[in-house]
């Protein structure tokens, strides 16, 4: 099934099962590896993304549930000129 997703401000068409967790779509289909697989049960927070501006566990969010909604991953937090956001900066090995 083709899912229409809006990730970090860009539209994407992804061919994936609609019940696939958003985390897998981000990592396996879109190469956005910032969100991590930790517990897979919505407990540890390693998979956190923002959906419509609110923090959500992407490992327990079916991809179909975010169609038509804004998803922001840690990759999408940088400023328009590419400057790292404070959160990205904290994760950066070069700081």
């Amino acid at each position, binding site marked *: 099934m083709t899912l229409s997703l809006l990730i970090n401000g860009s539209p994407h068409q992804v061919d994936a099962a609609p019940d696939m967790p958003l985390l897998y779509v981000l990592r396996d289909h879109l190469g956005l590896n910032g969100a991590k697989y930790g517990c897979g049960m919505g407990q540890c927070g390693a998979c956190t993304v*923002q959906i419509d501006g609110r923090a959500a*566990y992407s490992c*327990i969010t*079916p991809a179909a*549930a975010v169609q038509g909604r804004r998803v922001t991953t840690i990759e999408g937090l940088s400023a328009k000129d590419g400057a790292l956001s404070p959160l990205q900066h904290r994760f950066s090995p070069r700081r």
Partner: protein
Amino acid sequence: MTWRKISGRQRAGRLAAGLAVLAAVAGLGVLAASWRPAIAPVAVPDPASVYPGLVQRGAALAATGDCAVCHTRTGGAAYAGSRPLPTPFGTIYATNITPDPETGIGRWPLSAFRRAMRQGVSRDGHHLYPAMPYTHYARMTDGDLAALYAFLMTRRPVAAEAPANALVFPLNFRPELAGWKLLFLRSGPFVPDPGRSAEWNRGAYLAEGPGHCSACHSPLDRLGGERGGALAYSGGSAEGWTAPPLDGRNPGAARWTAATLETYLRSGASPGHGAAAGPMAPVVRALADAPQGDVRALAVYADWLMHGAAGGAAGPAGPPPPDRAEAAAGAHPRGALLFAGACSGCHDEGAAGLAGTTDLALPGPENALRAIIGGIAPPVDRTGAAMPPFAASLGDGDLAELAAYLRLRFGDGPAWDPARITAAIAAARTEETAE
């Protein structure tokens, strides 16, 4: 004719004046009858002077009675009050029951504490709102009230003034509470039933007295009084959550046993029934500090409420209702898809299986949606049942689809009213944002 008219008016005028005087006199009478004297303050007792054994006994009663649940605000010091208690009549703020001399009960003698617990009257003489369940505490023994007093007076004093209550007129006029008490404050000391076991009697005392279980698990009438008789324990509500029936009307009554009830009360969850959530979560957290024998006694009494009270046989654990996966997926394909992606990772089978879950078997969707939207925090020592919140993951339409699917698959009852599902989602979202 003219003469008669004037006379009639005069007569009506006199009658009105007479009635007004009568009403005023009656009003004064009510005020006088509602008046309670202040009890003179005393010096704050020295904690070192209190017998430690009494404090320990009081601590167990405070745990069973969940005092801290209402008398502690989120993130605040234990027993220092200020927690907002939403009622159908407005918001009441719990008072400070630490021994602070100015803002707490530090200068209350035992006699004032006993009067507050049994008659709902503050030390200074004003009537307390029945959000404080004194209709239950009135059943407590003198010895237990002294123990509870000893426990509270040896807590760390915290200076904290509760915000003013925000109640609708005319309920913000406290002397009226005297009338409410005439109607509803009728409980005397607990009378043990010699025909039943010591454990049953202990459980009954704890449930009816300090534990005040029926304050939430019985319906209230329009004046906020607990319905008794055949309606006692037939289910009520608390803070927007449904408090399920604790009698034979509980959806899982045929499967609950004293043993599973004890597990639930001690750990916050029981396989095949679900986990404590909403206002029951802090109750279970408090019970973790109660003596095991007391929790066992509560379970024995609850088991009797479900199976013995109405003359029914004690229910052996029956099978959970069937899992109607195919029918539910056929009727609600979107819900099935969401369940597969969001829920089945944990809820596929085993201990977290959803068949028989109380919240899905209740007539309304409120509890289930509140749990899904807000999640469930593990109630005891951060272990036990936990569920992440789905507020940000699922939109309103998807939540409604999921609720309809869950009800049909696991619920064992007629479909939930879609309008009620929509309203429950909105209410749970409002609360979730407020926190």
